[in-house]
């Protein structure tokens, strides 16, 4: 940023530059959907920015207040559409907390496997689209190739390709078929090989490191102040993972996994490369979790019997409220539900990780170049469906 310091705008000078207003989005190739950022630029350098969101506001919270608890599950799919399983899981856990029930053990282990598979799928999109943002198109195609395998795996128990509606309050919607776990393990072996390929192609590429290292640095205090969570927080050096620190599913206690934290390998702690690299390493941790979990899935029911009976009439929790949070691929997804005895809650609040992670953007952009701005937006890995809900 040394260029910026000697670059001051003074209209009294004989030669001075004017600021230009540049509008990024809502239709722009690299705003990851319909984010709109209004920029003031001085040449290539951004001097001020303002996020404008809401281009995908789909009234999810209003719908949550009008439909039953079970009916809301598919709407959670459509919030973070890259990690539907994790969203289903968070919602189911919230309703279970409200009802005071717990899913049977088999369901819990299945939930862990599908959630981690979906975490990999989500990080693969982050990897692929980040490559496009930086100007390398090929990683996207590689990422989608493996993502298709994951989708095929998740399609078998759930019946859907992308928005699964699979994890329900009280368990999972269907049992897994025989042989599915073996296929998951086979995928793990294949993926490990592919992962190395990605690193050869993109992660350690000198141009890629040059574009992402030292860019968009989020210090630890700033990250906490903005309520950032997930890989974005961990890249800033805060070891905070709800799976480990606030275990919301019993199996996570029994599983061994590391929480990757940013190290500032190629630049400063908390820069874009760190965020990218934390995601890449998290994929391998997820593989590790799946490998441990697959042999340990116990026999038994996949759905709570009492809950299954309750589905015949809409669920009616006692008046009360519950806040449940889960570690999603993008960070802490929280559902805050207030029930007053009816078949639908009176308030159904979503604490979306992308929403909080995006709020830091306006603080990061000033002083960077336009190309860096694209790199920063990509490294935050937002999903607009979740930002706007």
């Amino acid at each position, binding site marked *: 940023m040394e260029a910026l310091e000697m670059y001051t705008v003074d209209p009294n000078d004989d030669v001075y530059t004017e600021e230009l207003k540049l509008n990024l989005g809502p*239709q722009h190739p690299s705003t990851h959907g319909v984010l709109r950022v*209004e920029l003031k630029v001085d040449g290539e350098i951004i001097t001020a920015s303002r996020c404008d969101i809401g281009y995908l506001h789909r009234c999810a919270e209003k719908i949550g207040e009008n439909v039953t608890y079970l009916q809301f599950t598919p709407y959670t799919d459509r919030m973070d559409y890259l990690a539907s399983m994790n969203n289903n899981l968070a919602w189911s856990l919230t309703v279970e907390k409200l009802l005071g029930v717990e899913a049977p053990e088999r369901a819990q282990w299945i939930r862990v496997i599908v959630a981690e598979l979906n975490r990999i799928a989500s990080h693969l999109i982050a990897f692929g689209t980040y490559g496009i943002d930086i100007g390398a198109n090929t990683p996207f195609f590689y990422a989608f190739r493996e993502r298709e395998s994951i989708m095929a795996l998740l399609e078998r128990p759930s019946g859907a390709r992308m928005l699964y509606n699979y994890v329900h309050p009280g368990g999972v919607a269907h049992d897994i078929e025989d042989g599915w776990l073996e296929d998951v393990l086979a995928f793990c072996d294949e993926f490990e090989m592919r992962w190395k390929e990605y690193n050869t192609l993109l992660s350690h590429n000198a141009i890629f490191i040059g574009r992402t290292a030292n860019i968009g640095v989020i210090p630890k205090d700033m990250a906490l102040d903005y309520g950032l969570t997930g890989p974005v927080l961990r890249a800033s050096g805060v070891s905070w993972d709800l799976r480990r620190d606030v275990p919301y599913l019993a199996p996570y206690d029994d599983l061994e996994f590391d929480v990757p934290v940013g190290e500032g390998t190629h630049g400063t702690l908390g820069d874009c490369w760190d965020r990218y690299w934390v995601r890449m390493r998290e994929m391998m941790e997820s593989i590790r979790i799946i490998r441990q979990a697959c042999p340990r899935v116990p026999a038994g029911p996949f759905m709570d019997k009492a809950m299954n009976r309750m589905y015949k009439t809409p669920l009616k929790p006692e008046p009360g409220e519950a*806040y449940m949070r889960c570690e999603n691929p993008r960070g802490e997804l929280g559902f805050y539900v207030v029930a007053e005895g009816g078949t639908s809650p009176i*308030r159904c609040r979503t604490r979306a990780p992308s929403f909080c992670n995006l709020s830091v953007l306006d603080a990061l952009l000033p002083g960077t170049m336009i190309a860096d701005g694209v790199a920063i937006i990509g490294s935050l890995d937002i999903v607009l469906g979740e930002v706007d809900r």
Partner: protein
Amino acid sequence: MNETDIHSKLAGAVVSGVGALDESAKDPFVVVDPGSLVPAVTFLKNDADCRMEMLNCVTAVEREDCIEVVYHLSSVTHRHSLTLKTRVERPAGGTHESWIPEVPSVAALYASADWHEREQWDLLGVRFTDHPDHRRILLPEEWIGHPLRKDYVYPHEHGGMPLDLDAVPLYERDEATPSEPAAPRPSGTPLVQPPNPNSDRPDAGGVAPADSDGDLRSIKPGSNDGGGH
């Protein structure tokens, strides 16, 4: 520390306005007066034993008799969390959207509160006093009403874009004979335009031309704005 310890520390430190801890709830919560919200949050953030570094979520809840604002705080250092609530009673007659409750903003303490509070203003119409940038966030600035209120009336169209299922498509509309305006909705209270606190325009809250608010948004269509690449 668990919630009880935090509550006793908090009750001891802040002079007034901290209610009892409701331990029967699934997430035990403390109710504080709106007036003592900022001191309470400041204490929770700065006290060495509490260290609530992170404000996870700000939620406004419309109840029968009041609007509640719920703060979920958590500490990364000590791995504990607390739910804090503040309540604004509904005045007599304040049943519809004209009633705008006011709660002090904590955006000066937590940067994350900025967007959360804007969202609650946008969707539920809770005004956060001293908020640095008190605008709508999800809906367009000229939107009428706050949709998560229980008595919200759904609009038929916005900014020329039809929102009804049976609306006539834009390109099939005959300019000479405009289509019949949709019949007014049978139920619901009359639409009252809420005042826009952060605008100096006299017609704030009314129908304004798109993208005409704020200095940055004044990029006009035709130059290089909005939808166009």
